[in-house]
């Protein structure tokens, strides 16, 4: 399997129009193919800004980002077709059913009607939503809504998947189902870029992490390598050591 770069982030800086400081400052990262890459940091560190830039929602003020699949650079609509995004919010239509949502977003990824139908059934089954496939999402629990949100990001079998706090506010069962499924697609070759506040979950799930604070990368590398280097017993210990104990509101 090819394990070269999937995303190359070079000197990326972001400053919002009215802001006095950079939200991201000269970030350089390399995310390799089939990595589960954790972007971690306290509130306001710049994680969501970075993931929004990586997805193409907002442009960087400076710097460059390159995307590769199997060592071949991709851009424009091809990049969008091979990339999936699962935002922190329930960014879909709660008045519709999971099937109607997947139908719509799948079509936006240019999937054909026949492929879409097969893919929807498979995803609904894998994420335990088959029984509620034709029920209005607004009646669902938080965990079910998270799974619908995830399914939409996966409908087109993306090669690179961005997840912004995919398990926030869900029960243990849903969290377990989501992580298991993500591990499964990662084994199949999907690169995953993931943000979370759950340190234990990130420690188990990610093979590499970047710890961001005040818009800067304060640590980057493989999980074990970072723990050893900083003499930390766990990711949470490392997190506190590098970002301090002060409140971040």
């Amino acid at each position, binding site marked *: 399997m090819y394990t070269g770069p999937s995303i190359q982030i070079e000197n990326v800086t972001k400053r919002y129009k009215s802001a006095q400081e950079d939200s991201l400052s000269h970030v350089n990262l390399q995310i390799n193919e089939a990595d589960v890459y954790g972007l971690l940091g306290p509130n306001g560190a710049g994680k969501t800004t970075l993931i929004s830039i990586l*997805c*193409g*929602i*907002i442009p960087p003020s400076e710097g460059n980002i390159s995307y590769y699949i199997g060592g071949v650079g991709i851009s424009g*609509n*091809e990049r*969008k*077709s091979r*990339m999936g*995004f699962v*935002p922190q*919010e*329930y*960014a*879909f*239509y*709660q*008045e*519709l059913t999971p099937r*109607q949502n997947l*139908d*719509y*977003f*799948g*079509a*936006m*990824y*240019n999937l*054909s*009607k026949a492929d879409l139908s097969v893919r929807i059934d498979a995803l609904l089954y894998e994420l335990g939503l088959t029984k509620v496939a034709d029920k*209005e999402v607004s009646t669902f629990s938080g965990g079910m809504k998270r799974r619908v949100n995830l399914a*939409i990001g996966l409908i087109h079998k993306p090669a690179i998947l961005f997840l912004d706090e995919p398990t926030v506010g869900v029960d243990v069962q849903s969290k377990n189902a989501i992580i298991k499924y993500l591990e499964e697609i990662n084994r199949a070759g999907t690169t995953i870029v993931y943000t979370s506040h759950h340190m234990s979950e990130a420690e188990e799930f990610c093979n590499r992490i970047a710890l961001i604070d005040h818009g800067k990368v304060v640590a980057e590398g493989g999980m074990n390598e970072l723990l050893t280097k900083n003499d930390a017993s766990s990711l949470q210990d490392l997190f506190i050591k590098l970002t301090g104990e002060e409140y971040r509101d």
Partner: protein
Amino acid sequence: MFKIFSSIRKEFFLLVSDKVGLALMFVMPLLLVFIITIIQDSAYKIVNENEIPMLVVNHDEGNQGNKLLDLLITSRLFKIDTLNALPEKALKKELLARGKMIALYIPPNFTNGLESNTGEISHMMMRDLGLEADSASVKTAKMPSLSFYHDPVLQENYSASVMGVVDSYLGMIEKSMMIDRIYKDMEIGAKSENLNQKMAVNRVKINQIVATNSNSVAVPNSTQHNVPAWTIFAMFFMVVSLGSNIVKERVNGSFLRLKTMPTSFMLVMFSKMVVYVLVAILQVALTFSIGVWILPKIGLPELTIPTNFPAFAAVVLISSMAAVSYALLIGSWAKTQEQANGFGAISIIIFGAIGGILVPAFVMPEYMQFASNFSPLHWCLEGFYILFLKGGSWNELRWVMLFLGVFILICQLCTYIKLRIEKII
């Protein structure tokens, strides 16, 4: 193609899931058309059907009171209800109790007074001509006066025009009596009939011409005003459903999510336009069908559909697009659904009021008529009026099309700017 179909289908599903929005868009105009048309129908009938309900109390002891009454009846301007047994002092109370707007009281000395007046004039004339006149035959009685009662809510110009009609009939009676009396005093009384007839026939005729551009003349009535007016109102009221849908999509991140997909945001806007323009066309079809087939069944005037169908379709289409564009504008600028619903609904009511939906613009003060030019609802209604009442051509619709076209462009441009600011586009 599948993408466009899916996008339109999603908008349709969102639309049907919003039951309150659907009720506002389809049930509200029907109720408004029924209620307001019934309420306004009698007022329009008074103006258009020329049958003004009038209570007459005739206490005249001679025959001229009945003559005046006959003239009023044969004029077909009044729906006369006589109540001669009623004393004059009870007339005011009776007028209000019976719900009549006007009443006429003819006093007991009406004929006597008129005869006295004509005798006096004839005597003066005979004397001036140097002909002998028998002064003993001139009775002297006070000139009679009629009393005209009206409801205080009746507008001044309206009661003045009714009094003008009564006055013209009085003039006819007085002239006829004068001729009879002069001829009688000249001892050629038998010949007065010819002159009276000649004078009655040889009058300046006034030709009434309705200024329309086609031969078909649709009379302005409550249906012709209310059906298009409330349909336009309902079209614009879709701001509540569409506007809040857009806010929801902006706030929950659906729009931003689309930005990460290989699709154009214009497709989203296009789908919304298609679905909601279709909704507006359905609203027109529904309420206009009610106007054509149902309203006449409950005794209300029938809606007359214009003969220039392509122009009619164009007005419906541009009005629908204006309504949808306004909803897109509100949806893109409102921060919350509550803001979109509140501001959207109130702004439509204000636009409706100044645009002549609630009350026709021509009865408004001059400055309000000027203000109505700034209401898109006014221009939509004007388009329908040009076609429905004036049998208008494409040429006459050019200002309507121009204004609504500019309005649509401004709304779409402002929507685009806001979505650009939010980095959605």
